């Protein structure tokens, strides 16, 4: 009982941290979320807040994630 009392908060923290990570991973590899971020990138390019070079760099990172996400889907 004592052991349980001492470990319970830690278990909870670990469980919560795992859940947060799972949710972060889900968003990180969600093709729709990646497409939304690509659209935002395009908007920043159109509005002039992002240069062509910055766009290309960030697009490549997102496309790599998109390929991984699609790979996991199939």
């Amino acid at each position, binding site marked *: 009982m004592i052991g349980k009392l001492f470990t319970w908060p830690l278990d909870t923290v670990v469980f919560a941290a795992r859940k947060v990570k799972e949710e972060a991973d889900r968003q990180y590899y969600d093709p729709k979320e990646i497409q939304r971020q*690509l659209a935002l990138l*395009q908007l920043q390019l*159109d509005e002039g807040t992002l240069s062509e070079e910055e766009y290309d760099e960030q697009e490549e990172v997102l*496309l790599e994630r998109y*390929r991984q996400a699609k790979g996991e889907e199939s």
Partner: protein
Amino acid sequence: MAYYVFGIIRGNGGENWPHAELNGKSYRVLPIETNQMAAVVADVNETSFDPSRKNARTHQKITSEAHTRETFLPMSFGTVLQEKKDVKKLLTTLRPQAEKMFPKLENRMEVGLRLTADETYLRELASRSPVLKNIKAKQQKKGQLHFGERLEAGEASAAFMKELHENIQQSFFKPLSKIADSVKSNDLMHEKMVMNASFLVHEENEEAFDEEVNRLHDEWKEKLSFTYTGPWPPFNFVDIQMKAGR
């Protein structure tokens, strides 16, 4: 061999389509017709296409070309079918839906209007809000707000922005909806964006719509940045999505 589907066109689609550049390769574009309705496709040798800017531009280019030829129902980016018989099956499946949609979209175009609030305008509005003024005064007096106060500040800011979005959308939707056939509100893409809408406009009303946008621009240009785009195929007014192979 597979087929990248750009959308469904009324009639036979005609000839001499421009080539489609997808994943860095040039593919032939052709219509596949059954009974006065055709799928506009590229015959491709791969099934997965990145949503890159180059590929998206190609999708936009071919769908725009189709839209100038006949009434056209654009598909969303990346729709690939494995065989010609799948394309024919798609046409058969979508025929009842397409026949209903064609007359509603005939001689119509989509235009987009995005509005972003100017920083100075936002500050000026915020300085007139009693709630935000009170929070700011508290912060200046105490240096740092405690947790509950920070939550309260967040909620007050969100309510302030919500009210601003509603006021602006009302000012724009009301006059523009009188000219457009239909309007769709899309997601706001960043915190300063106050409106992101698509309008379906009959070509006879294109000039009147442009004039109204210009009038609104003259009225609001000191407060908002305008991004007015189009004409586009009616992407936001057609809900057709097919998964490859289905």
